[in-house]
């Protein structure tokens, strides 16, 4: 193989590019792919096969390539499994062969090929079973090391990827004659058209076909159409773009190679992952040529005829001495055209009878073998009962064409068998809104491609309510296409079907023999079609061989299912935006900057960030900070940002009625200016959330949710409203973002407020009132999540940062300060207040001892289901407090509880610990737990067992309210 001196429509011969393959310095030309430049350099051996490590070379010129997968080195790292046929060449490109050691020429794993009689289909299901322990230790690691293809570097740093949306009237997929014609007709009618083409150059087979359109070479015609489309504002041309999936509602998954394959992409994203929503789509993806399963058809130098033509025309690759093995008119015509163009075609072999008017020798016969260790040297054929060996550098196969209808099958549609072309063709409406045209629909002539493309565009325009100007069809001369199916050559030796997964005709026959005779069984048993090319070139052949083995017809044996993606797509692109911090939006409170300045480590709370604790230089560890902050609240005053709690404004004449319906307790009896703790159930009777409900005015309530459940509660309330009380006069709206809210808690809370407000309103416990802070209107609530006398003060969010700063300064002046989530947790555990550690979605009001809050006088969401027998009673896990018998003995959340005289076995389980903390106030570890029949067992001692952390200690069940059970401190 070598480069021709002339030709190569894709090449810019003025620019030579240096690159390397397996450390060998080579030269290519701008416009080359890695595959074309390797072929032009005579490098036929480019990789090793998956299972038998057979030498392999380039077979195709497109994304369907089963063999030529390489690693591409870049920036000190590398990318595995890159198709050499898709990798555009650039200056300095470094690539190397994969799945071989120590080198692609001398690969020690090639020993597998010698063992192949024992490694046939499904061999591993029958052995490697003894002894049992050897599987993970020996057999499996060996299998894993031998399998796989490229290596995945453990790299975190990579070029960025992008994702985007687009909408259009018509998406045309493929830019061959059919696609161009469709795009042109639709674009001239003014429709918004996106034309996507996988290749760098648009034109499809017009780029490598010698046929004429309107009296000019096909490529020239294509260039003219593209020039017109480029100038139209309603057309977006997307070369280097693969449409990889068809999804519901006219949505297509699309991958655009942006910086990928470029020498110096700079800050350009490697790829952009598009979600294109198209009202109509036209699939014009052409057809894929299929190989013929003859013995040793996998040798480097055996290629598809269409690929040989493509490399010849587009990349000026001279394949040397060529033998063509075909079974169809198109193959013969192509061979003649290539010979006329100067290709050294030595012979054409076809099992059919062929007219002997060719400029090369023709044989009616079959190829029955090939030779050449690392690349083809000769081809053995059988004709008229004789065997002949022909020296050759390239064997070009053409077993006919399969319409490239994969995308049409993505919605479970099954194509139909067309005996005329011995291939599956799409049926109408397999994907709603998508028409399939040209070769993808089995219409192989250029005339038919142009015609079906124009027709489909007209139909799409009619659906869109647009009139279509008459776009005359160009004149083309049509070559007939006839073939006699030839799936496998009956001869001695192994004949490959699936090159990428090393599946031979023998494997398929063996699968059938072992009862795996349905297509799906055969595929799964042999792994046929599951390799990186997803059976693009082999599924059809395997189906035919299976039909043969089972004595059935192809149509009766079945079809194959194509699932997304059409070509493999990088996870970095599909997951663009997931890397690093952008996986989920971040929500910051107004006090965030100040909190960070104070050195607080932040923790996630839903999407929010909240301070864990506020460290001081004297703290030995976080516990010191936590204890200190806890004691601020117990002995002085603490300040905490509670803005993350959900806040929902409920207004209207029926607002109270609605709240009575969604809360277990009654809110309509609440007086304006007062606040009540409320419990919401899911309709299935379990606790959904808790919070406070403040009646700001007669028809105006403000309710709070927990931080984590805010979104869920809003959706729930909207549902209840729209489903059950749409005609009630009230409205809900979230005001979470509008307000900054701070807890001010501790015996000196009033003193702090005095400094702040001058005059402290005389607010009873669970009262609320508007306040003015230097002209700013705020709200003051006397509520407490700490059990101390406390307030929550809310101001419009723009004042939050400054208010927090001033509150902290004032608190510090009073011997207190800011407190974080750790101290907040201690404070609430000391009081037995629950959070989502206890409200874990499985607990009921009964379990929490809050059954009294479920009003007997009214219906509410969840009430009916909460009365199921299994949701109440002694067998339920009930909320209790726990204290270690030795107060300084650490206890842990997640530990389980057992009777002291029983082992830690599941059958003896009594419950588990939900939350723990060390209480600096009570000088003891405290825990909250859910314990079977717990409320009746206060005073009992259980064994706490945390086997995971090797901790075991005796604990006493007690009232979950450890501190101030009467509530005097917060009330008085």
């Amino acid at each position, binding site marked *: 193989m070598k480069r021709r001196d002339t030709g190569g429509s894709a090449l810019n011969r003025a620019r030579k590019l240096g690159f390397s393959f397996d450390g060998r310095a080579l030269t290519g030309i701008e416009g080359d792919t890695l595959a074309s430049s390797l072929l032009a350099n005579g490098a036929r051996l480019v990789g090793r096969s998956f299972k038998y490590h057979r030498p392999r070379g380039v077979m195709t010129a497109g994304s369907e390539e089963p063999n030529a997968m390489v690693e591409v080195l870049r920036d000190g790292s590398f990318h595995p499994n890159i198709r050499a046929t898709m990798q555009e060449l650039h200056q300095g490109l470094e690539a190397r062969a994969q799945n071989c050691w120590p080198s692609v020429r001398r690969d020690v794993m090639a020993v597998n090929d010698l063992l192949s*009689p024992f490694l046939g289909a499904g061999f591993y299901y029958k052995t490697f079973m003894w002894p049992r322990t050897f599987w993970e230790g020996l057999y499996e690691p060996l299998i894993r090391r031998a399998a796989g293809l490229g*290596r995945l570097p453990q790299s975190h740093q990579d070029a960025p990827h992008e994702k985007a949306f687009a909408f259009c009237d018509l998406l045309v997929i493929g830019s061959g004659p059919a696609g161009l014609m469709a795009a042109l007709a639709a674009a001239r009618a003014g429709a918004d058209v996106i034309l996507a083409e996988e290749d760098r150059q648009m034109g499809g087979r017009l780029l490598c076909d010698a046929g004429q359109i309107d009296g000019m070479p096909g490529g020239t015609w294509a260039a003219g159409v593209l020039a017109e489309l480029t100038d139209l504002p309603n057309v977006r041309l997307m070369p280097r773009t693969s449409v990889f999936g068809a999804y519901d509602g006219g949505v297509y998954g699309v991958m655009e190679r942006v910086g990928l394959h470029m020498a110096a992409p700079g800050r350009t994203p490697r790829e952009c992952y598009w979600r294109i929503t198209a009202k109509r789509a036209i699939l014009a993806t052409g057809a894929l040529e299929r190989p013929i399963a003859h013995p040793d058809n996998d040798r480097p130098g055996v290629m598809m005829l269409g690929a040989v033509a493509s490399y010849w025309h587009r990349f000026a690759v001279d394949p040397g001495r060529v033998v063509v093995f075909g079974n169809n008119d198109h193959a013969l015509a192509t061979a003649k055209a290539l010979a006329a163009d100067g290709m050294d075609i030595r012979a054409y072999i076809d099992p059919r009878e062929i007219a002997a008017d060719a400029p090369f020798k023709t044989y009616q016969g079959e190829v029955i073998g090939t030779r050449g260790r690392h690349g083809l040297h000769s081809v053995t054929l059988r004709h008229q009962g004789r065997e002949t060996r022909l020296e050759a550098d390239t064997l070009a196969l053409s077993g006919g064409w399969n319409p490239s209808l994969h995308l049409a099958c993505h919605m479970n549609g099954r194509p139909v068998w067309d005996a005329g072309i011995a291939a599956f063709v799409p049926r109408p409406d397999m994907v709603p809104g998508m028409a399939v045209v040209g070769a993808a629909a089995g219409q192989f002539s250029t005339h038919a491609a142009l015609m079906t493309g124009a027709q489909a565009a007209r139909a799409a325009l009619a659906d869109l309510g647009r009139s279509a100007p008459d776009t005359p069809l160009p004149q083309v001369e049509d070559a007939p296409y006839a073939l006699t199916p030839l799936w496998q050559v009956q001869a001695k030796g192994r004949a490959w079907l699936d090159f990428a997964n090393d599946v031979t005709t023998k494997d398929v026959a063996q699968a059938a023999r072992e009862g795996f005779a349905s297509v799906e069984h055969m595929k799964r048993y042999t*792994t046929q079609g599951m390799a990186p090319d997803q059976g693009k070139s082999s599924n059809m052949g395997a189906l035919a061989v299976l039909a043969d083995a089972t004595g059935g017809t192809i149509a009766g044996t079945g079809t194959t299912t194509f699932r997304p993606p059409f070509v493999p797509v990088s996870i970095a692109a599909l997951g663009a935006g997931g890397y690093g911090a952008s996986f989920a939006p971040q929500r910051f409170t107004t006090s965030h900057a100040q909190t960070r300045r104070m050195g607080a480590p932040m923790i996630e709370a839903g999407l929010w960030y909240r301070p864990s604790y506020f460290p001081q230089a004297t703290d030995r560890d976080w516990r010191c900070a936590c204890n200190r902050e806890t004691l601020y609240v117990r002995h002085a005053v603490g300040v905490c940002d509670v803005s993350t709690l959900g806040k929902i404004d409920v207004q209207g004449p029926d607002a109270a009625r609605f709240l009575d319906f969604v809360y277990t307790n009654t809110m309509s009896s609440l007086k304006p200016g007062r606040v009540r703790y409320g419990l919401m159930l899911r309709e299935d009777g379990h606790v959904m959330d808790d919070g406070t409900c403040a009646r700001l005015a007669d028809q105006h309530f403000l309710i709070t949710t927990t931080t984590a459940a805010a979104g869920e509660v809003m959706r729930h309330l909207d549902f209840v409203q729209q489903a059950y009380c749409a005609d009630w006069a009230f409205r809900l709206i979230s005001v979470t973002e509008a307000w900054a809210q701070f807890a001010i808690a501790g015996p000196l809370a009033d003193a702090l407020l005095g400094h702040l407000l001058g005059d402290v309103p005389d607010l009873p416990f669970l009262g609320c009132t508007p306040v003015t802070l230097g002209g700013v209107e705020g709200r003051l609530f006397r509520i407490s999540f700490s059990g101390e006398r406390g307030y929550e003060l809310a101001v419009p969010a723009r004042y939050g940062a400054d208010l927090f700063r001033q509150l902290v300064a004032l608190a510090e002046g009073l011997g207190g300060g800011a407190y974080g989530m750790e101290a907040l947790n201690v404070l609430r555990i000391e009081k037995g207040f629950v959070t989502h550690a206890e409200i874990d979605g499985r607990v009921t009001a009964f379990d929490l001892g809050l059954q009294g809050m479920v009003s007997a006088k009214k219906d509410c969401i969840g009430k009916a289901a909460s009365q199921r027998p299994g949701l109440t009673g002694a067998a339920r896990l009930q909320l209790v407090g726990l204290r270690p018998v030795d107060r300084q003995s650490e206890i842990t959340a*997640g530990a389980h509880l057992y009777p002291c005289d029983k082992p830690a076995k*599941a059958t003896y389980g009594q419950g588990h*610990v939900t939350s723990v903390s060390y209480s600096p106030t009570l000088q003891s570890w405290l825990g909250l737990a859910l314990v079977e029949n717990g409320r009746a067992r206060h005073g009992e001692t259980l064994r706490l067992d945390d086997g995971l952390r090797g901790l075991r200690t005796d604990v006493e069940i007690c009232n979950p309210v450890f501190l101030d059970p009467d509530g005097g401190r917060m009330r008085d």
Partner: protein
Amino acid sequence: MRFNALSVLRQGLAGNTGWRPHWRKPDPKPEYEMLIIGGGGHGLATAYYLAKNHGLTNIAVLEKGYLGGGSIGRNTTIVRANYFLPGNSEFYSHSLKLWEGLEADLNYNVMHSQRGLINIFHSDGQRDAAARRGNAMLAQGDDAILLGREEVREILPYLDYDQARFPIYGGLYHKRGGTARHDAVAWGYARGADQRGVDLIENCEVTGISVDAGRVTGVTTTRGQIKARKVGIVTAGRTSQVAAMAGLRLPIESHILQAFVTEGLKPCLDHVVTFGMGHFYISQSDKGGLVFGGDLDFYASYAARGNLPGVEQVMEAGMTLMPMIGRAKMLRSWGGIMDMTPDGSPIIDRTPIDGLYLDAGWCYGGFKAVPASGWCMAHLMATDQPHPVARRFRLDRFATGDLLDEEGTGSQHNLH
């Protein structure tokens, strides 16, 4: 024919022409003692254990397509026993023990690989939940280790410890967790049941269930009427339709779960890793593909295919947890149909119709359950008593409130 290294050697030397079908292809008889509707993993395992444990062999498995073509043929192959609610714990513990002896029992290499499963957690609250789970596993006699962040880093150095939106706090390590070759499980049970005399009837769709005076009497199929005294519905993914033939309306909604596999790669991921915050789980198959998935697509569907928002959610979660997979390429995606129950746990129970039994509602955890499900369903059908480890998988537990809600998300089918 017993499978062993010698038979592989002998057949290899003889050109692999002497292998025989792994199971027969019998025509259905007019009557059997028991029928199993559904030739997936659970149905085949039920038939196998009916024959093996209870000596009942006058049984047929009726499969509308090909054996193992349902969920057993399209899952992410994870095998684990890491449940924490009594009722689930003992069942999955039993299942894992059966897995550990499965190859010897079936004489079929299902490639059960106990490579270890690590569930990553991302907050103190999640650590507490993981501890509760791990302690439940220990109390059940299974294995669990609580790992800190640095210990996770030693085992899984490729996770992103610096930039993840939800930082890694640690992991719960279940060493006996792992994977298995899913198709082989179906084939192994099929071969085992067939060898014991069970008729496995493919391409035989049940079109009606005959009930007379509250008792099941047989079924109508595309291959004729078949009588039987007892019929088991083991058709996860299509349970509602099959049960409707007997007039039953079930606590099941069908949803899609998508899964993905990459192109083959050399060994790079030696465990099963799950990521609670992002609903993401991943392992590497023996062939080298990364097999991974995430949450449901969340809408009721029988289409066995999903949409892009679900795809993106999984890919984004993968990128935030282990960015190295960005360079791998997704090769194939597919969707399975999940029987979602209102508490996320399965049903193995009698139905209100005498002689009609139900094994259903596996949500997206059915694969690992196959051995115990078959074992317990066989016990139920043979003895009319629930097996002790499956006694809480009752059909009436939703009415009574005796729920098994591991996720704590309540009676919304798609949230489990």
